[in-house]
């Protein structure tokens, strides 16, 4: 029953989405000066509606401001959002590892976590190394 209702839900969502897509695209033609204040108001109400807390409204505004400044100065907002979303899970898993393994060593002696650690290290170092190599070749 649950599966059928989920299937039905997706079909209805697809029909509504497809039939309204061209009309919704017209929103992009609305002038930003008209759209921005309305969007701000809807965002603030949305954040309030989540927990009925006015503090959330203030936090939403402050994070909006932070996001704007980050964009202006070339900082990655995606990294911040990923950190906020995954931080809780990371902290819980980190504590679990500390409790079940031999302290921090657990991250480096278990094969899967070791491979993931090396892959992370490589993904950070490789672009830097490639860029350095390319520059060296260009200089020659």
């Amino acid at each position: 029953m649950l599966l059928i209702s989920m299937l039905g839900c997706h079909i209805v969502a697809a029909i509504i989405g497809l039939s309204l897509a061209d009309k919704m695209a017209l929103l992009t033609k609305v002038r930003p000066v008209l759209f921005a204040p309305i969007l701000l108001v809807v965002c603030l109400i949305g954040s309030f509606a989540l927990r009925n807390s006015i503090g959330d409204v203030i936090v939403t505004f402050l994070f909006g401001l932070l996001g704007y400044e980050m964009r202006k100065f070339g900082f990655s907002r995606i990294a911040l959002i990923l950190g906020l979303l995954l931080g809780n899970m990371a902290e819980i898993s980190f504590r679990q590892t500390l409790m079940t393994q031999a302290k921090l060593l657990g991250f480096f002696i278990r094969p899967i976590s070791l491979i993931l650690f090396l892959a992370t290290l490589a993904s950070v170092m490789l672009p830097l190394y490639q860029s350095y190599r390319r520059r060296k070749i260009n200089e020659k």
Partner: protein
Amino acid sequence: MKNEERIFMVFLLLIMLLMVFMGFRYGAGSKILPMASGIFSGVIVAFLLIMSFSSRIRAWYQKFEKRSVLTESELSVKEKKRELSVIAWFSGCTVAIYFLGFLAAIPLFLFLFLKFWAKESWLLSLVLAAAVPVIVYFTFVYILSVPLHTGLF
């Protein structure tokens, strides 16, 4: 934009330091992650800050990174004023919501913003200022049964 950027970096650095400082209050196991991430991010931001002052370190780092470390585009005075005024208007909206509640602050903010900042016509400003709260009330209070903040008064 260099000074503005430096101020922003100092602000980020203060957040990282606060995170490390608050980490001291946690238990032995609990403080490792916030302190490690705080120290690591703090070192990166501090490095960026040092680079914004030292052209030699910046030149060294640019060997590895193609993109410029500091933002090169500079906003004109007019653009800066416009940016600050929008931030002030939006902050005003948030404060108004806190004191007056959503249903009083929204029409007030929309009308004043559209009429005096965006210089829109009286008709458009009034229509939008009247329509948006009605839609908000109908959607949130009537359909979704979400009680909106009514302000402090």
